[in-house]
C-alpha cells in the first residue's frame, strides 16, 4: 500500500471490505477500481419485493483527495436511472448524507445501504416534482446544489 495518499489508503480498505461483505444486491469490479481509487462504479440490483425488483442500476462515486472529510460525489449513471421522488432524471440524488449530513465515519458501503433503503421504501415511482427545471439548471456536480431535505418520509 505504499505510495497511496491517505484518501486512497482509506478507499483501498473500503474496497477490500466491500468485496468481502457487500450489501445485498451490490457488486463492484475491484480490478477496475484499483486502477483509479478515486472513481468507483458500483452495480446495484433493485431489491426483491420492492418497486425496483429486477432492475439494475449503476452508481458512480467520485472522491476528492479530501475524502473522507469531504463527501463523495454520488450519482446514478448509465441507461437506467431509477424513477424515484428523490432521484432526478440526470442521476442526481437528493440524500442528506451526501452533503450536509456527511460524516467521515460513513463509507461507500453506508452510502450504498442508504440508497438501497431509499429505493426500497418507495411507494410510487415518480420523478421529483421539480425534475424538469432542476435538470435544466443544475450544476453538473450535485454537491453544488443547495438541497432542501424537507421530505424524509419517502
Amino acid at each position, binding site marked *: 500500500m505504499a505510495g497511496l495518499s*491517505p484518501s486512497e*489508503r*482509506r478507499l483501498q*480498505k*473500503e474496497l477490500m471490505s466491500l468485496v468481502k461483505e457487500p450489501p445485498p444486491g451490490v457488486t463492484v469490479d475491484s480490478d477496475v477500481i484499483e486502477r483509479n481509487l478515486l472513481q468507483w462504479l458500483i452495480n446495484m440490483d433493485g431489491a426483491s419485493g420492492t418497486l425496483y425488483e429486477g432492475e439494475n442500476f449503476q452508481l458512480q462515486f467520485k472522491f476528492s483527495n479530501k475524502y*473522507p*472529510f*469531504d463527501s463523495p460525489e454520488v450519482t446514478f449513471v448509465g441507461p437506467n436511472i431509477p424513477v424515484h421522488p428523490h432521484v432526478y432524471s440526470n442521476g442526481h440524488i437528493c440524500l442528506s448524507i451526501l452533503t450536509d449530513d456527511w*460524516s*467521515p*465515519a*460513513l463509507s461507500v458501503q453506508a452510502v450504498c445501504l442508504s440508497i438501497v433503503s431509499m429505493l426500497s421504501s418507495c411507494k410510487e415511482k415518480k420523478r421529483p416534482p421539480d425534475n424538469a427545471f432542476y435538470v435544466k439548471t443544475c450544476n453538473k456536480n450535485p454537491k453544488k446544489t443547495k438541497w432542501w431535505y424537507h421530505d424524509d418520509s419517502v
Partner: protein
Amino acid sequence: MASSASSSTGSSKKIDANGGPDTADKEEKKEDRTFECNICLDTARDAVVSMCGHLFCWPCLHQWLETRPSRQVCPVCKAAISKEKVVPLYGRGSTKQEDPREKVPPRPAGQRTEPEGGSTFPGFGFGDTGFHMSFGIGAFPFGFFTSTFNFGDARPGAAPHGTPQHLEEQYLSKLFLWLAVLFIFWLLLA
C-alpha cells in the same frame, strides 16, 4: 526462581502455540479492529476518545473539527464534541506520555483580529489599544462576541500620544475597562 533453561523453553513454546510470527500478526490485526480510528480505519495513533466513547486518531479528529468549525459533532453518533472534551489514551506501549492534543496539529490560534497598524501593542495596558482589550476581557464568557465586536477592524492605527484624539481614546478605554469590571462583578453576584 526457575532456571534460565526452563524459562527459555517456555517462551519458545509460546511462539509455537501462536503458529509463528505470521499468524500472530494476523490475529493481532483482527483484534486491532476494535481500536481502529473511525475516520482513517487504521489503528488509531495518538488516540483520543470522545465523551460519547468513539475512538479516533487525534490528527484525524482534528481535521474533521477543522472541516466544520461551526458544527462540531462526533462523526459516528453526531453527539456534540470539542477539542477540550476528548480524552487522550495512553497505552502501555506508547513511548511518550504526552497529550496528543499538544502535538501537531497545534491548537488553532484565536479568532481575534488585532487592529491594523498597531505595531506597538502594549499588552494589557490602558494605552492606545486598552479599550479594545478590556472589552474583550469583559465579554470573555461570550467568546464569540469578542471577535464580532472587534471595533478595531478598520481603525487606521492609534492616534499619536498627546493629541486630543489620543486622550479621548484613553478616556474611552478606561470607561470600558470599568464597565467590564462592573460587568464581571455583576456576573459573580448574579
